[in-house]
């Protein structure tokens, strides 16, 4: 895929299995978004072809788009319309009408946990709420394939956790999910297959375990101990079990884990008015 003198995607050959949750990992400018734009039929590749099942995307982009639910990186919402109106507009664009549309709008409100805010203007929502709505708008037509392009940009840990839960649920329900990000921990947390891209090329593609097996010489386990045990006591137990080369480090977990433990996992939608960027598309 060439833009002027820039080759954004170069000789990419990637097959994504139906029903998988594949992480497309790469730094900024790796070509992830361009790849997904080709899959979604937004850009026609300068060379090669993209197929979704047996459909050639270049020839039948509209047929493919009915199968896809794309969550764009930007907050593609109308800030001067209400939450419900946004859902209705995007549902209607996918051909939903009447009772089915109303049912799917209610489903979307529940999914985004915005039932109480359905009459609020989107411009007045917090960043996290907008992200959740952004996801819900893409899923109203019940797509078979869900493409998430960095959906967690600028969200609080609670909303991120909610988005992760939603994506896992979509996967469990049998949908194929493609998830792009440049955050390793997101891919680790969600994906069963990982493709790593950089400079428009595919560098690696395997299951998460397969990729880690190829690069790691040691295995790290997490060990939970009851309060009162010292490091020495735990090491003693491990040695007694025949694990002589064990190394034990004390860790209090990631900052995100600490934050979630202290502040809880419940969503904080009521704090939107405290947002300094209230009304802005963040």
């Amino acid at each position, binding site marked *: 895929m060439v833009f002027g003198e820039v080759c954004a995607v170069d000789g990419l050959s990637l097959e994504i299995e139906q029903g998988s949750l594949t992480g497309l990992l790469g730094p900024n400018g790796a070509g992830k978004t361009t790849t997904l734009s080709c899959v*979604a039929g*937004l850009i026609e590749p300068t060379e090669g072809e993209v197929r979704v099942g047996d459909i050639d995307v270049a020839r039948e982009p*509209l047929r493919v*788009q*009915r199968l*896809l639910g*794309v969550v*764009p*990186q*930007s*907050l*593609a*919402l*109308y800030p001067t319309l209400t939450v419900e109106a946004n859902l209705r507009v*995007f549902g209607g*664009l*996918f*051909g939903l009408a009447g009772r089915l549309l109303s049912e799917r709008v209610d489903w979307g409100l529940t999914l985004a946990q915005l039932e109480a805010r359905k009459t609020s203007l989107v411009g007045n929502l917090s960043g996290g709420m907008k992200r959740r709505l952004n996801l819900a*708008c*893409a899923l109203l037509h019940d797509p078979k394939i869900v493409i998430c392009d960095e959906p967690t940009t600028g969200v609080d840990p609670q909303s991120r956790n909610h988005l992760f839960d939603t994506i896992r649920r979509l996967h469990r329900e049998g949908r194929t999910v493609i998830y792009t990000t440049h955050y390793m921990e997101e891919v680790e947390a969600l994906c069963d297959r990982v493709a790593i891209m950089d400079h428009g090329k595919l560098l690696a593609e395997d299951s998460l375990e397969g990729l880690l097996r190829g690069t790691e010489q040691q295995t790290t386990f997490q060990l939970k101990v009851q309060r009162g045990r010292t490091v020495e006591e735990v090491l003693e137990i491990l040695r007694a079990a025949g694990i002589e080369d064990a190394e034990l480090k004390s860790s209090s977990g990631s900052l995100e884990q600490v934050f979630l433990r202290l502040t809880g996992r419940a969503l904080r939608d009521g704090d939107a008015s405290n947002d300094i960027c209230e009304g802005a*598309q963040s």
Partner: protein
Amino acid sequence: MKGLFWLIRKDLMIFFADRQGALMTVLVPVVLASLLGMLFAPRSSSTVLKLLVVVQEATPPVRDFVAAISAAETFDVEEVDEATARARVGAGKASLALILPVGTTEALQPAAMFQGKQRHAELLYDPSDDIEATMAAGLLTQVLMQETMGSLSDRDTMSEMFGDLESDLGPDADAQLKSFLAAGRTLSESATATKTLNTGAEQGGMQPPVAFDRVAATVTGVASQYNSYAHNFAGMLLMFLLFAGQTRAKHLVAERQAGTLVRLRLSPASDRTILLGAALSTTAVALMASAVVYAVGILVFRIEISGSVPGFVGVLLCQALFVGGFGLLLAGLGQTEEQIGSIGTFVVLILSFAGGAMFPSFMMPEWLRAGSQLLPTYWATHGLAAMTWRGMGFSEALLPMLVLLSSALVCAAVGIRRFRFRS
């Protein structure tokens, strides 16, 4: 101080980075000032008034009078029959028509100036252009007087005139007047008599033998139906609908920048459908605005739809479609909201000005009047005038509708072709 310098420099750099915007900042006032200057500048002596002339009595004096009008620099004369003259002025296709009735020959005799009996000739005019009619009446009187007075320099004519006047006097006429006329005849027989003419007439002195009665012409013949609000409502509505088209174009570009356009493109709607939707939503807004504006005009300002109601609705519909296409064209021409703002304002003002939406077309120079017929805005205002106060039939709405519809299609086609879905 250094901080202030850099703040100013930063703003100037941003200003000049948008070259198109910077250019428009100076171009718009220059062009508008030139056009307005042209509009309000005093009419030069070379201004020519188009005049249709109907001759109902083709005698040599009348022919001479018409020739004199034609010879005057101020008139561009075309001889037509009465029906044509009434139809063309009524339809606004000509602004003036002079009907010289039977009896004009007699009125053009020099003696008629002193007989106190004026002949009346209709000067038909477009009711939206009464200034030009007033000017034309004055100029025609001037030509008439020059022509009639010129014949007084002929000794035989003068002698004949005094003889006629003497014979017209009754037995109880004033003795002094009789004596004056006898002296005048004697004088004209022996010398040039023109110097004596200002001394009196039978009843109150000399007067123009023909009065040019200004008659506002409409197709239905009901002059009172002209309502200046009709023109202003049509013009202002059109101008602000074009600005609404500009706003829609800005929204479309804003959608591109915000990302919602991507989401629309991810739906089964094609790119063309998305743009067509944008144009038709603008059309719907334009129609709603038109309905409200004309409702106020009709209820409050007594604007009447004296012509064809379907024609009126048709012109409004085609005008709204044109506004939709115009918005799409601007979205295709400007890459940013700022560019659309500057290009759009310029184009809207020019289209409104030259199309007669801001000022009546009679105020414009002739070349601009002729050139404005190439603009869809001219046909919009013309079509609405035809269907409202001119009281014309549906057939007169067809050409404006066709022009507006064609313009809408061309604008939409260019807009769709040029619009970039990616920034």
